[in-house]
C-alpha cells in the first residue's frame, strides 16, 4: 500500500527519470514554452554548444514580452533592440522546427494566457518557461515553474530538468467571497499576512471551497502570484471545471486519448491524509479588496484600511525596507489608500487579462467615464481574449469609458525602455509587480484587482469597487 501523497508528489512521481541524490530528481518536462525575450538566447546558446532541441514537438513559442501593443502594430518595437530579440527568436525557432504563435497568428498572446487557451496546459503535465510567472499554469493542475536561460537550454537539450523535492504547503480559502472581492484580493491578502517569502520555496496547493467554486481564470490568478509569495510554484487540483475548460481545445488530448487523460486527471488530488509541511487556512468570506502601498506585494492593505507605520515592523531590516518603500511611493502611514489620486490605470498582464477579468472591469465601467486626466489602458492577455471581448461588446464599454483598447502582449506590466506612463506617475494596475521603476522610471505602482482598477480609473483616485457595484 502506498503512503498518502499530495497532488504535487503524485505528479512528481510520474515524471521522475532518475534519482540524483541530495533529495533531487531528474524530472521529465512535458512542455516547454518560449518567448521572444529569452527564447532566442536559449536557442542561440544551444546552437553555440552544438546541441539540438530534444523534442521540438514538445515546445511552443509566442511573442509577448517586448512586442508593441498599440493598434496597427508591426514588427517595430518601442523597446530599443527589440528587432534583434524577435529575429533571433524567429530564426532559432524556425531552424529547430518549433511552432511559434507569431504576431499575425489568431492564437498569439501572453504565454501563460495562451497555454491554457490552446489546451496545451493540462493537469499533471510538467511545464517550464523562461518567465517567473509560469506558475500561473498551476491553475490548470499543471506542475509549472519559471526558469532562467541556462535551465531553458537544459530543458530544450534534454527534455528534462533536475529539481529538488520541494516542501509541501497547502493554503485553504474557505467560505464564499463577497461581491467585489476576487482571486487577486485573496492572494494579495495571503502575501500581506505571511510575507513575500511566506511561500518559503514550497510547492503550494491552493484548496478550500472558495477555490473549488472559482473559474480556471481565478485559479490562474492565484497561482500566478505564488512566485510573489516566495513559493516555488502554485497549483490547484484539477476538477470538473478544469476538464470542461479543456474539452475541445486544439492542443488538448483528442478522441480516445481524451478519455484516458480525463481518467488520469481525476486521480490527481491530494490524498485525504497526505502530509503537508505547512497549512494555512483563510476565511475567504471576511476578505475585502486589497491594494499594495509599497514596492513589494507583501506591502498590502485592504482598500479602506490605513497604511501601516514602519515603526511597527519587527526588526531593523524590515523597518528600513518599509521606510524605503514609503519614500518611493509617497503613501502616508496612518491614512487609507482610498482617495489617493492616480495618474493612470492599467488592466493587463498574466495576472489579470483573461476574459473574466475584462468582464469584471466592464461591469464597473459600463455607463461610466474615466476621470479627467487619468490615462487608462486595457491590454487583453491574448488575441483570442481580445476577439471574445469584442464579440461580447466589452471593447465598446472600455472605449466609451475612455480606455485605450490595445493588442495582446505583456505591454506596460514592465518598462523596458519603450512604452511607459511617463515619470513619477501613480498607477493602479492589475499586474503582479509593484517594484521600484518596474512600470517606468519613478512610476509608483499600486497592485489591485481589475474591479478595483476600473473603479479607481472612474474615481481618479484609489477606490473601493464595492460602492460602484452596489448601485
Amino acid at each position, binding site marked *: 500500500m502506498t503512503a498518502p501523497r499530495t497532488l504535487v508528489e503524485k505528479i512528481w512521481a*510520474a515524471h521522475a*527519470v*532518475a534519482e*540524483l*541524490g*541530495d533529495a533531487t530528481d*531528474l524530472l*521529465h518536462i512535458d512542455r516547454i514554452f518560449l518567448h521572444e525575450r*529569452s527564447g532566442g*538566447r536559449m536557442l*542561440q546558446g544551444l546552437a553555440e554548444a552544438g*546541441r539540438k532541441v530534444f523534442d521540438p*514537438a*514538445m515546445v*511552443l513559442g509566442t511573442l509577448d514580452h517586448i512586442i508593441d501593443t498599440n493598434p496597427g502594430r508591426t514588427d517595430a518595437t518601442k523597446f*530599443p*533592440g527589440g528587432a*534583434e530579440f524577435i529575429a533571433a527568436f524567429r530564426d532559432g525557432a524556425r531552424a529547430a522546427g518549433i*511552432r511559434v504563435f507569431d504576431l499575425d497568428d489568431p492564437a498569439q498572446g501572453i504565454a501563460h494566457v495562451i497555454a491554457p487557451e*490552446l489546451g496545451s496546459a493540462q493537469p499533471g503535465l510538467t511545464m517550464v518557461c523562461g518567465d*517567473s510567472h509560469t506558475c500561473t499554469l498551476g491553475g490548470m493542475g499543471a506542475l509549472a*515553474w*519559471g*526558469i*532562467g536561460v*541556462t*535551465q531553458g*537550454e*537544459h530543458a530544450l537539450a534534454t*527534455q528534462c530538468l*533536475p529539481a529538488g523535492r520541494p516542501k509541501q504547503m497547502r493554503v485553504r480559502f474557505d467560505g464564499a467571497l463577497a461581491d467585489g472581492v476576487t482571486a487577486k484580493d485573496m492572494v494579495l491578502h495571503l502575501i500581506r499576512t505571511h510575507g*513575500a*517569502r511566506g511561500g*518559503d*520555496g514550497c510547492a503550494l496547493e491552493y484548496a478550500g471551497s472558495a477555490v473549488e467554486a472559482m473559474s480556471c481564470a481565478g485559479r490562474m490568478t492565484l497561482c500566478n502570484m505564488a*512566485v*510573489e509569495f*516566495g513559493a516555488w510554484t502554485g497549483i490547484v487540483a484539477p476538477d470538473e471545471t478544469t476538464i470542461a475548460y479543456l474539452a475541445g481545445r*486544439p*492542443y488538448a*488530448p483528442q478522441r480516445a486519448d*481524451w478519455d*484516458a*487523460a480525463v481518467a488520469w486527471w481525476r486521480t490527481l488530488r491530494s490524498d485525504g491524509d497526505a502530509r503537508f509541511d505547512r497549512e494555512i487556512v483563510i476565511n475567504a468570506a471576511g476578505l475585502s479588496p486589497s491594494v499594495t502601498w509599497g*514596492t*513589494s506585494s*507583501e506591502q498590502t492593505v485592504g482598500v479602506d484600511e490605513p497604511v501601516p507605520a514602519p515603526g511597527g515592523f519587527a526588526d*531593523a*531590516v*524590515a523597518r528600513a*525596507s518599509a521606510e*524605503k518603500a514609503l519614500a518611493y511611493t509617497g503613501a502616508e502611514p496612518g491614512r487609507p489608500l482610498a482617495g489617493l489620486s492616480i495618474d493612470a490605470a492599467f488592466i493587463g498582464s498574466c495576472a489579470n487579462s483573461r476574459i473574466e477579468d475584462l468582464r469584471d472591469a466592464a461591469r464597473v465601467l459600463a455607463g461610466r467615464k474615466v476621470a479627467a486626466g487619468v490615462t487608462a489602458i486595457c491590454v487583453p492577455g491574448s488575441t483570442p481574449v481580445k476577439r471574445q471581448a469584442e464579440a461580447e461588446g466589452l471593447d465598446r464599454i472600455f472605449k466609451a469609458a475612455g480606455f485605450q483598447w490595445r493588442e495582446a502582449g505583456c505591454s506596460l506590466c*514592465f*518598462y*523596458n525602455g519603450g512604452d511607459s506612463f511617463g515619470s513619477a506617475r501613480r498607477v493602479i494596475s492589475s499586474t503582479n*509587480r509593484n*517594484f*521600484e*521603476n518596474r512600470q517606468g*522610471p519613478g512610476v509608483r505602482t499600486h497592485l489591485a484587482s481589475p474591479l478595483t482598477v476600473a473603479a479607481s480609473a472612474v474615481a481618479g483616485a484609489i477606490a473601493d469597487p464595492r460602492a460602484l457595484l452596489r448601485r
Partner: protein
Amino acid sequence: MEPFRRIAGTSAPMPIDNVDTDAIIPSKETQSTARTGYGEKLFANWRYLPGTRAPNPDFVLNNPRYAGAQLLVAGRNFGCGSSREAAVWALSQFGVRAVIAESYGAIFRNNCIRNGVLPAVLPIAAVEQVLAELADGAIAPQMAVDLETCTIVSPSGAVFGFQIGSLEREMLMQGADEIELTLMKRPLIEAFRARDQALRPWVYASQEATHAQDH
C-alpha cells in the same frame, strides 16, 4: 563556469528585504541577446543618477569604502521577481561572486548556482550582525566565504556556518556543466519516455497534427 572554492575580499551591505531582479538589472538595460556586458548595468536605477550614467553618491557600491566588492550582504528574499538570468550575469560580471542573505527568490538562486555565484544563507540575526559590522567605520569591510568548509568570516572575525545541498556545492566547486551531466543520462531518459508513452500517450501525441485538424 568558474569554480568556486573560497572568496575573500570587500563586502558591501544592502540592509533591506526583497531586493528584486528588476533592481539588480532593469529590463531596459538588457537590449541585446548577448550574455556579456552587464557589469556596468548592475543596479543601474540605484547606482546612477536618474537618466544619466553619473554615479549616485548615495548608493552603496559607489561608496569608496566598498569599492571592488566581491560579496554582497542583504536581508530576506534577495533576487525575488523576474527569472532574468542577466541579474546573475550582472553581479558576476561586476565582480560579485557570493551573496549572503536570509533567503532568496527560487529562480534567482537556481541561476546563481549555474553561473558560479554562491547564494549563501544565514539566519536573519546573523545577517543583521554582519550588516552592522559592515556599516561600522572602525572595522574594514573584509569578509571571507569558504565553500569547502561552508563557513563565512565576518569583518570582526566571527565565524558562521552555512548549509548548501551537496549537489549544488559540488556543481559550484567543480564549475560543472549540468547539461552535459544530464545528456550522459540519455538512455535513462529514452527508457522513461518509452514507459511513460504507454501510460500517458496523449502527452506524446503529435501536437502539430492535432492542431492542424482544427484549422
